[in-house]
């Protein structure tokens, strides 16, 4: 038996070792859980809510519901813009907050039916049966006629190089 080994030390000072072990474990577990559980509530939803913007940029009217046709024309004419898609971005779904308080708000995108295949392709997503579209990390509800007129629609501009266009 090596009298100077760490294991001999533990055998001699069991109580101290157990006390230190328990103290560090408890504090470390507490801190980890505090950060991990709060991160999932406050940060992850915020991040997943903006991920769709890595594929598109959104142009909305500052006042009112309708985009100025001149602005729409400017967007269409911009050589960096690959496609202009009318969409309604004001929709959302509120998931109940884990710790109470306000709901977690997830944005939804209402598209014209003919634009759905393009958006799905761009997002590497596939259409399941029925009217629900499952995207990579979020869900979009698709309802025909949700955005029939351009009056209340946002424009999604897709850049030619694959990056968001502005």
């Amino acid at each position, binding site marked *: 038996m090596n009298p100077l080994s760490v294991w001999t030390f*533990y055998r001699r000072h069991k109580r101290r070792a157990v006390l230190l072990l328990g103290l560090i*474990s408890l504090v*470390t577990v507490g801190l980890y859980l505090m*950060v*991990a559980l709060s991160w999932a509530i406050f940060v992850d939803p*915020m991040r997943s809510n903006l991920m769709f913007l890595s594929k598109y940029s959104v*142009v*909305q009217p500052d006042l009112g519901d309708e985009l100025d046709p001149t*602005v729409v024309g400017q967007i269409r004419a911009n050589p960096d813009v690959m496609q202009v898609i009318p969409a309604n971005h004001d929709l959302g779904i509120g998931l109940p907050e884990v710790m109470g308080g306000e709901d977690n708000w997830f944005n939804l995108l209402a598209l014209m039916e003919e634009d759905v295949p393009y958006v799905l392709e761009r997002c590497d997503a596939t259409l399941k049966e029925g009217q629900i579209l499952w995207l990579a990390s979020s869900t979009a509800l698709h309802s025909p006629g949700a955005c029939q007129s351009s009056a209340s629609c946002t424009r999604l501009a897709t850049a030619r190089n694959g990056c968001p266009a502005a």
Partner: protein
Amino acid sequence: MSSTQTNVTTYETRHSKAKERMRNIILLFATTEIGITVIAAIAVAIMNYISLAQRREEFGVLNALGRSRLWLVLRTARETGSVVAIAWWISAVIYGVSLFCAQVAVYAPKGIDLDLLNPVPWLFTFPIPLAVILTSAGTIAWVLRRLDSVAVIERR
């Protein structure tokens, strides 16, 4: 494009705002962690001081036998380091089990995913073990600086 009538939302603009909010949240956690780390370090320093006072003879004899003070400090740091490493692994198992239970019972039913591989919470688990090791090494170095090994041998 620029216009006073339109509002252009790009990934960059939203991401920079989100990054700012994330920075604030991390700062809040870091402030809490610093407070807890300082308290834990003081508690461990007091515990160590009491323990080292009881081991004064052991250190005195080892020092008289020719072990340098640096060797004694490193030995204590190794002792504490191994306790801390075991405690950290025990904690890691508890995190895993707790996160799995929280995911199944609370988060999944509310549509939220818990990511066990997220590095941020893991980074917050290191300051306390490091503070404990450093405090232990610091306390023993301070005690040994004033240790008279000959007096210890004479008392025996």
